[in-house]
């Protein structure tokens, strides 16, 4: 098994994966954005076609690798390789999408094995643009999967939001974890 040092960000096109990784990465995120074509075109100017990559430097020289999956679902062949050695999953969902619950279901199912072996947190983005559905409904949706993850309203552009979301991931893995 590869090293335990990755955090995986996933979610549909435009959910804020690239932005979230940029928010907490110590290096400018390496992103392979390209002009959006076909399906994504109406939504945004550029989309990630391969992976997002960022690093968080830890004292002692250790690094945490932050990976973002490409939003376009057709690239999902890479996901298995990606999750190997992952600490946990950050799922970002865009509240302005036509059916965010459909997205939720899709990603939970895709990553089910990884989630069961590790942990998941969910950040719902763009709630400033579309306040509905509310988080309570997301919690309700999660019941069908028997999961009770932290679900936060997140603006991927806010370092604080992204940081709190990832902190929640770590505490969901181990609440007893002390800070020092």
């Amino acid at each position, binding site marked *: 098994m590869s090293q335990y040092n990755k955090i995986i960000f996933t979610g549909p096109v435009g959910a804020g994966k690239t932005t979230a990784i940029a928010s907490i990465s110590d290096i400018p995120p390496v992103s392979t954005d390209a002009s959006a074509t076909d399906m994504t075109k109406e939504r945004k100017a550029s989309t990630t076609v391969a992976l997002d990559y960022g690093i968080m430097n830890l*004292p002692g020289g250790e690094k945490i690798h932050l990976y973002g999956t490409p939003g376009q679902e057709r690239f999902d062949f890479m996901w298995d390789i990606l999750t190997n050695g992952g600490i946990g999953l950050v799922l970002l969902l865009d509240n302005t999408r036509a059916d965010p619950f459909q997205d939720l279901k899709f990603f939970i199912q895709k990553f089910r094995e990884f989630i069961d072996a590790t942990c998941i947190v969910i950040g719902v983005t763009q709630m400033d643009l579309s306040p509905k559905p509310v988080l309570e409904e997301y919690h309700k949706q999660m019941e069908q999967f028997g999961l009770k993850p*932290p679900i936060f309203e997140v603006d991927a552009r806010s370092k604080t939001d992204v940081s*709190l979301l990832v*902190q*929640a991931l*770590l505490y969901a893995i181990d609440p007893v974890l002390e800070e020092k």
Partner: protein
Amino acid sequence: MTTPLRLAVLGLDTRAQNLFRMFFRGPCLNQAVIVDHDNDAEAFLIDLDTQNGAKLFALQREKYPNRVIIVLSLKDQTPIGATVFVKKPAQAQSMLSAIEKTRALIKEMDTQQALQTRFKRAPEPPPPPPLETSRRRTDNKPAPAELPEPATQPADAPPAMKVVARADKEEMATHKVAMLLDEQSFKSYLGYREDIDPANPAQLASVYYDPKEFLQGHIQSACKIAFARNHPIRLETPWKSITILPEQGLVHIVADEAQIRAACGIPFRSIIGIDVDSPSQQQRVSIKPLTKSEFEEISDSPHLVRLDAFLWKIALLTSKGRIPQGLDLQQAFHLKNWPSMTRMLLPPQAMRIAGLLTQQPQTLFAAAAKLGIRQQYVFAFISAAHALGLTEQKPVVIEVEEKPEPEKPAIQAHPERKSLLKKILNRLKFF
């Protein structure tokens, strides 16, 4: 990528300065640079231990009251004003953390200034929340409408709520701001309560309070009505009027943090007659549906805040780490869902408490013991979560022997993973 923090140094000779330049460039990952002129600097770095270190500090503080100063010393120091202390010999880690703290302080002060200007036209400008008590006393008078803190409060005027975290956007400020009460500010706002012995009935009784005796109770009943009717409701109190918009999940209130905190801290009957806004001393509390024009008046007011975050905060501030009557401390507590913590006022250790109580129902005493934290924090958290309907009570399951934690025990078996997670956490707390 962050640009290096520009620091002007005082009290360091050229050689020491050069050392620091290298130190910043290398071990400190280029997170700070030394600049020659005060005007180019975002913050200052002072060695207090040099012969005239203290004098330099005082001068600089006077000259630039609003600038952050990183203070180096061999002795633990808490110098006045916006300062960040680094104990010598400075290690990369402590310096990095000081740099991050400095950035946060600068940001925080910018926000305060921005907020001040934003709210200038509002009827009651909030006092600029200063960074710490000592500054407040010299720089700010308390807001006129502020209520006296109850007697149980520490004598020191508590500092206004410290905004540790904030949104990066200029938006409806109150919507976006997540706030974090660290242990220090929790204590100064909400006081200190000793842990209690669950077997001692007197101690147990002392930890309960009745929300109905506080503003909290009035707000909660107004909410109930608003939701039952699914119609905006205005709660008129001798203190302020509070408007609840159930459909939008918003509340309208013209009050700053310090005012809200003060109003929550004293029994509701004591609020009557104190408020300078309504010298007529209308004793009555009324609840009435909002008219269409009243609704339109406030519909894009900057004083609209999220209802869930508001109810959470009111409960937290009123409870001060006590427990609302009706909850049974002898029973196990279960957190149904995680609250949206990016938008709530967080008591110390909130994430750990949430993590533990969503995973496994247990008494709050057991939770505090397991986390190694004060009961007061757990009680405060639960009071707030209860106000949002997020808690459930269950009979305590007699544990037939320490059974293994049901969920994700894997991490416990990997001390090296655990230590990695801790490092990530410490890194994340910088943001």
